[in-house]
C-alpha cells in the first residue's frame, strides 16, 4: 500500500464508522451553533429592578427615572418595604433592588450626606455586575446634580462648578473586545477546545475499534500507520479549522488581529500535536465507547485550566504545570494572544515551540503504542 492509498483507506475508515462520523461531522457543526447559542444577545441589558422609595420626593422620582434610563436597568415596579422587594427577587421577578431612604431630598438640600442602598442578586454574576454598574452610575449622576444645584445656589459660575465636579476625567475603555460581548469572549477559546476534543475522540474511537480486529492496519509499519492517520485527520481538520477559525469567528464577530498565514502557522503544530496525542491515547483503549467518556469528563477541567474563563494567575501552580502537556492549553492561550489581542509572533513563539515539542513526544508515544498493540494482536492470532 502506498502512502496515498493508506491516507485514502484511513479516510474511508473514518467516514464509514458511524460513531466517528457523527462525532466529527455532526459534532463540529452542531457545537458551532449550540455552544454560543445562549450568549447570542451578547451583553446583559435591562435587568429588572425593584425600587423601595421611602422618600416620595421630586428628587427620588428623578433618581428612579435616571436609573430606568440606564441601559443596564429596567425599573419594573415600586414596593413599600424591603422585605417585599426581597420576595420579588426570590421569586425571580426582579434581580436587584434600590432603597431610597426617607428624607433623601431634605437631607441633601440641608447639606447632609445620604446613603443609597443597592442590592443585586449575586447568585448570578453578570446580572449582579450589570445591576451594580447601572445603579452606581445613576447614583453618581444624581449626586453630581445635587452638588451642581448647591453650587449654583451659592452663586458659583456654572462653568466653574461643572469643572470642579469633574476635576479629573477617568476614561476607562475596553481593549480587544470593544463591545464587551460574551460570544467574542467565549468563542475563540471554546472553539479550539471543541476542535481538540473532537479530534481526540475521532482518533480514539478509530484506534480503539481496530486493535483487536483484523484489517489493513496490521500489514503496515507502525510509523507509516501513525503518519498516514495523522495526515488523514489533518486533511479533515483543515476544513473544520477553516470553518471554525474563519467563518465562525466572522459570524460571531470575534475580533481578529493576526494574518491568515500566521493563524495557519499557529494551527499547524496544534492539530499535529493533537492528532498524535489522540493516536497515542487510542492505544490505551480497546472498547470503542471509552475514549468519548474519558474525554468528556476532562473537557470541563481543560476548559477552565486553559485560562480564558478563569485567570491563570489564580489557578494553583501544580495544575498549570500538568496542563502544559495538553495541546489545547498552550494552543488556546497563544491563539488568543496572537489573534485576538494582536501579540507579536516573537512573544508567542515559546508556546509554538512547545506545541512542536508535544507533537514530537506524542508521535513517539503513538508509534510505540501502535507497535505494542499490533504485536499483541498478531501474537493472539498466531
Amino acid at each position, binding site marked *: 500500500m502506498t502512502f496515498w492509498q493508506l491516507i485514502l483507506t484511513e479516510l474511508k475508515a473514518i467516514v464509514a464508522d*458511524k*460513531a466517528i462520523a*457523527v462525532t466529527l461531522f455532526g459534532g463540529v457543526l452542531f*457545537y458551532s451553533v449550540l455552544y454560543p*447559542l*445562549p*450568549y447570542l*444577545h451578547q451583553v*446583559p441589558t435591562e435587568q429588572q429592578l425593584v425600587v423601595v422609595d421611602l422618600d416620595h420626593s421630586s428628587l427620588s422620582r428623578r433618581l428612579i427615572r435616571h436609573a430606568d434610563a440606564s441601559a443596564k436597568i429596567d425599573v419594573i415596579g415600586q414596593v413599600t418595604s424591603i422585605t417585599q422587594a426581597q420576595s420579588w*427577587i*426570590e421569586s425571580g421577578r426582579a*434581580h436587584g433592588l434600590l432603597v431610597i431612604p426617607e428624607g433623601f431630598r431634605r437631607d441633601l438640600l440641608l*447639606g*447632609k*450626606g445620604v*446613603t443609597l442602598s*443597592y*442590592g*443585586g442578586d449575586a*447568585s*448570578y*454574576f*453578570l*446580572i449582579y455586575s450589570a445591576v451594580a454598574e447601572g445603579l452606581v452610575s445613576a447614583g453618581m449622576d*444624581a449626586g453630581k446634580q445635587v*452638588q451642581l444645584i*448647591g453650587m449654583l445656589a451659592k452663586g458659583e459660575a456654572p462653568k466653574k462648578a461643572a469643572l470642579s465636579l469633574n*476635576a*479629573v476625567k*477617568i*476614561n*476607562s*475603555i*475596553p*481593549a480587544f473586545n470593544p463591545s*464587551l460581548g*460574551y460570544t*467574542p*469572549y467565549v468563542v475563540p477559546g471554546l472553539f479550539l477546545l471543541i476542535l481538540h476534543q473532537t479530534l481526540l475522540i475521532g482518533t480514539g*474511537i478509530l484506534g480503539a475499534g481496530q486493535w483487536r480486529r483484523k484489517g489493513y492496519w496490521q500489514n503496515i509499519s507502525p510509523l507509516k500507520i501513525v503518519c498516514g492517520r495523522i495526515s488523514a485527520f489533518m486533511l479533515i481538520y483543515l476544513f473544520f479549522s477553516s470553518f471554525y477559525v474563519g467563518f465562525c469567528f466572522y459570524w460571531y464577530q470575534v475580533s481578529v488581529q493576526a494574518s491568515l498565514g500566521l493563524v495557519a502557522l499557529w494551527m499547524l503544530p496544534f492539530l499535529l500535536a493533537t492528532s498524535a496525542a489522540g493516536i497515542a491515547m487510542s492505544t490505551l483503549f480497546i472498547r*470503542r*465507547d*471509552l475514549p*468519548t*467518556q474519558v474525554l*468528556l*469528563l476532562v473537557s*470541563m*477541567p481543560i476548559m*477552565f485550566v486553559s485560562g480564558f*474563563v*478563569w*485567570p*491563570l*494567575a*489564580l489557578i*494553583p501552580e501544580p*495544575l498549570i504545570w500538568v496542563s502544559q502537556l495538553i495541546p489545547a492549553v498552550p494552543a488556546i492561550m497563544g491563539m488568543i*494572544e496572537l489573534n485576538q*489581542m494582536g501579540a507579536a509572533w516573537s512573544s508567542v513563539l515559546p508556546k509554538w515551540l512547545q506545541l512542536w515539542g508535544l507533537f514530537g513526544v506524542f508521535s513517539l508515544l503513538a508509534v510505540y503504542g501502535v507497535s505494542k498493540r499490533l504485536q499483541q494482536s498478531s501474537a493472539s492470532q498466531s
Partner: protein
Amino acid sequence: MTRLTSIIRRELDALWRSPWQLALVSYIPLLCILCLWWLFSAGLPRQLPVAVVDQDNSQLSRMLTRNLVANPVITPQSFTNLPSAVTAMKQADVYAIIVLPYDLKRDLVTGRSPTIDIRYNSQFLLVGKLLSSQIQLTLGAGLLEVAGVKQLLQGVPKSQVAVNLSPVTSQTTALFNRNNNYVGFLVPPVLVALWQLLAMLTFANGLSRELTPEGLLIPGEGVWLRVIAKVAVYTPLLLLQGGFILTFLYQYLALPAAGSLALLVLAQVVMLLAVWLLVLLVFFIMRDSARMVSFGTALFAPAFAFMGITFPVHEMPMLAQWWRLIMPSSHYIDSHVSVISYGSGWETVAGQLTSYWGFLLIIPLLILLARRFELASTSNEERS
C-alpha cells in the same frame, strides 16, 4: 419480587467486575470534583497584575499608585513607557493599563481637567470588568482625597468636606452571595454539570451491557425488569455522589446555605429520574454503546452554559431557552439557587419540580420503542 432481587444482584455483580464502571461511580467523581474545586479555590480574583505608566512622576501620581497598591484586587506594576505596557497586555502579562498623564498634577491645580486613561483587557471579560470598576473606584477615592485637602485649605469645616465631596454615598450589597465569592457562585453549577455527565455515562454503560453486538437485547428477562433493576442500583450510587457535592461545599467548605440540604437531595432524585428517562430514550433509539455515549455527550456537554448562572436565562434567545428545558440540570439549578440563596422551603421546591412535566411525555414513547425493540429481539432469536 425475587426475580427482581436476583436481577439487581446480577447488576451489582456486573458493576463489581467492570473496572471502568466501578471507577465512574467511585474515584473518578471524587477526583473530578476535587480537581474542579481546586481550580477555583482562589475564590476571589486577587492581586491581578496591572500596568501603571506614570508619566507625571509627581506627588499626586505616586499617591494614586499607592492607593492602587492598597486595593487587594490590583497588583500595580510600574512601566516606564507605554509601548512596553501595551506589549505586556497583548501577552496577557497584565490585565489593564493605567496611564497617569504628564502634567496631571499641574493641570489639576491650575483648574484644567486632565484625563486618566484606563485600558482594560475585555478579551478576558470576567477579569476586565472587575478591574475596570475597581480601578475607577480606587482612583476616584484617591482624587476625592485630594479635592478634600483643597477644600480644607479653603477653610471648609472638616465635617462638611466629606458631604460636599460626595453628598450621595452608595452602599452596594451583593444579596445572597455576600462577598461575591466565585467558589460559591461558579463551583456548584460546574459540579452539577459534571454530575449530570457522570449519571448519563454510568446509566448508558449499564444499559449497553444488555446489548448484543448487533444491537439486540441479550436473551433473558423482559427489558423493563432490567431497567428497573438498573434504576434501583444506580440511583442510590449517584445520589451518594450528589450528596458528596452538597456535603463538601456546604458542610466541609461551609459555604453559606440558607435553606435545607435535604430539599436539594429530593431535587437531585427528581433530576436523576429525568436523566434516566433521557438516556433510556437515546438507548432505545441508538442501540449501540459508542453512538449512545456520543449522543449523550452532544446533549449534555454544553449543560453548564445553559444553566443561566454565568449568563442570565431571560437574556438568551428563545431557542436557547427551549433547549435549556431539555436538560435536567437547568431545572435542578433553579431549585439549587433558590434553596441555597433564598432559603426557599418545600412549597417553592415542589412548585419548581413541576417544571419537569415535559419529561413525562417521554414515557409513552419509551413504552412504544421498548415494545418494538423486544419484538425485534425475540423474532431474531427465533430465526437463529
